[in-house]
């Protein structure tokens, strides 16, 4: 697809203004080691911030490293650089979910997390499993590490290794993923996902975050640079200003990573949201999320980096009509612009609420969005003038090999959810909504999907790493 909202001169101006912000306003960078690295490389101090010289940033952008992810099963390969299509993943780190039975929100448990991983593993349009639910029935110290620990055990797909918010967390997330892969060397060679790190906006890298960045960069594992600014609150209210500020956050992040380890692969990831300007709440009811994602796909590609952006999201708190139209809109723009990774499956209310039914419905939405991602194949055979001739001569289309063959190739979308039967038939079959269909499918998946069964020895190793992490944290 070829939707390009930004013109070449727009990209150039955005790049120039990014360098201006970094070299004249600078960023707050805490943490002695990060400051030493940047100051040695030519940054200077002003007003308590570090200024990034234009040349340093431009040098850091040179020779981007290509990124390829592998499933927990190494046969599954996702080439993020020059990806043939947009890949998808679910939401991450949500601690409350919409209970399908009661339709009320409740806190997530370990069992919920395992169910969500199984569902994610089973869905054919979900490419990468992100540790989704943060269980509240585990000791607080290890709840964030438990997310990747369980996720790695129940899927064979690529897994987002985890969100790193300090050095301790980074070390243990890497340890967990290395245990699954059979060693750090093998993990670096065939990473199953990235380490995600979020600076604060505007342009603020606290000590724990720079610690996590340096530790991650050293490991050589792919790193997801994940600024999450909100237009009007923590970034300029204009879409152009928000994009440029987050671009400055990306490039400051990138500069630090590349000074530590030039071989570390990077993913340009943006979560640019807008707030409700009466309440200040960031609830996800924002058609610009998708449009911003399309712009980010262009910016990332300008730097030769794969992009990861918001996709399916909505302000709604239940899988309803609002959720349907907002998600389709927000995912369509970035997919048309060729974003590498599109997120949000199973997510409601701007990232605050998870829903298993929504996760299953999203698989259907993506299957429809992906259906024409490659556009239309136009050649003599697809046009089929001969077929028209033979039908006009007294045949019928159903009895043509052309029809059968292209049907098998997927020329007409064949979905798993939703109604297309006439009313009487729909009513006779129980008159069920797509949400009820999704709920039934959810039960089938939870009861029947085998997924990956991890070796008991590996499972034990992961749990002993969690215990070790807990002991170190509480010491």
């Amino acid at each position, binding site marked *: 697809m070829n939707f390009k909202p930004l013109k070449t001169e727009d990209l150039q101006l955005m790049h120039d203004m990014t360098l201006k912000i970094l070299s004249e306003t600078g960023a707050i960078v805490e943490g002695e080691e990060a400051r030493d690295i940047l100051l040695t490389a030519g940054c200077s101090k002003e007003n308590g911030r570090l200024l990034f010289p234009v040349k340093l940033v431009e040098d850091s952008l040179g020779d981007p490293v290509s990124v390829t992810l592998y499933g927990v099963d190494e046969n599954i390969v996702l080439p993020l650089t020059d990806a043939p299509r947009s890949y998808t993943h679910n939401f991450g*780190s949500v601690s409350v979910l919409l209970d399908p039975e009661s339709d009320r*929100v409740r806190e997530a448990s370990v069992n919920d997390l395992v169910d969500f991983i199984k569902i994610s593993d089973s869905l054919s349009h979900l490419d990468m499993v992100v540790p989704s639910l943060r269980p509240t029935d585990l000791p607080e110290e290890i709840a*964030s590490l438990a997310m990747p620990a369980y996720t790695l055990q129940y899927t064979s797909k690529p897994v987002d290794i985890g969100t790193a918010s300090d050095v301790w967390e980074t070390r243990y997330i890497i340890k967990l993923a290395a245990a699954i892969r059979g060693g750090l060397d093998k993990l670096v060679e065939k990473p199953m996902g990235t380490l995600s790190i979020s600076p*604060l906006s505007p342009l603020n890298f606290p000590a724990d975050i720079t610690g996590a960045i340096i530790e991650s960069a050293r490991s050589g594992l792919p790193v997801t640079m994940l600024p999450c600014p*909100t237009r009007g609150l923590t970034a300029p209210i204009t879409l152009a200003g928000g994009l440029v500020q987050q671009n400055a956050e990306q490039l400051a992040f990138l500069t630090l990573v590349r000074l530590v380890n030039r071989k570390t692969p990077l993913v340009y990831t943006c979560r640019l949201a807008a707030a409700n300007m*009466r*309440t200040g709440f960031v609830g996800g009811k924002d058609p610009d999320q998708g449009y911003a994602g399309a712009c980010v796909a262009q910016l990332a590609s300008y730097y030769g980096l794969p992009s990861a952006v918001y996709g399916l999201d909505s302000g709604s708190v239940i899988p309803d009509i609002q959720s349907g139209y907002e998600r389709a809109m927000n995912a369509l723009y970035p997919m048309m612009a060729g974003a590498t990774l599109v997120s949000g499956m199973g997510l409601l209310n701007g990232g605050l609420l998870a829903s298993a039914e929504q996760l299953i419905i999203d698989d259907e939405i993506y299957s429809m969005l992906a259906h024409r991602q490659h556009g239309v194949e136009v050649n003599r055979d697809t046009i089929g003038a001969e077929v028209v001739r033979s039908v006009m001569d007294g045949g019928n289309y159903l009895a043509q090999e052309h029809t059968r063959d292209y049907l098998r190739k997927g020329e007409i979308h064949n979905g798993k959810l939703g109604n297309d039967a006439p009313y009487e038939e729909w009513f006779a079959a129980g008159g069920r909504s797509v949400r009820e269909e999704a709920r039934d499918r959810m039960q089938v998946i939870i009861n029947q999907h085998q997924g990956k069964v991890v070796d008991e020895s590996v499972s034990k190793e992961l749990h002993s790493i969690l215990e070790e992490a807990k002991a170190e944290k509480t010491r």
Partner: protein
Amino acid sequence: MSEITGDLAKAVLEGKKDETMRLVRKGIDSGVDPLDLITRGLTVGLDKVGEKFEEGEYYLPDMMLAAEAMGEAIDFLEPHLKADKETKKDKVVKVVIGTVKGDLHSIGKDIVIMMMKAAGMEIHDLGVDVPSEKFVLAVKENNADILGISALMTTTIQEQKKVIDLLADEGIRDRVKVIVGGAPLSEEWALKVGADAYAADAIVGIKKMKALLGQEG
């Protein structure tokens, strides 16, 4: 005099800080009672801002700009006020507020602070990354009516419970109303950690605070 207070109300209503400051300086220079500048000018403007916000015409930036204009004008006028306001000060609602340890997010808290200032409350902002002990100490020192505890990340909301537990350990839990805020939170969470109230946004927050103190919402 009525002309200058009217202009002052209008300047606050429109969020014009420079114009507000020009007018208060002019008022003082021409001998207008500073209390009149506040009660008949600035406050009238800010009340009108509140009305427009309630009616849906004004948004957060309108509030913020008006509150900033008013705040700077009050700072300028304060030394000119006679010292007879001390007794009145006891009746002002005192709030201690901050973001928990390990969490550096401030924007949500700052919006709440702005709304509380506009509602005439006295604010003691402890900033971000605030340890539990500091919250408790500030509640004691300021004899706070309300303690606001903010946390944005699923990894830091647990700190809210620590603060509330420490208030109980120190035997002052009953002396202060505790309200928690932050995007990952819920009413259920507020009850679980022993807070008095939870608010999803600043507007609801102000209403709940007033309700807790038995004032009109």
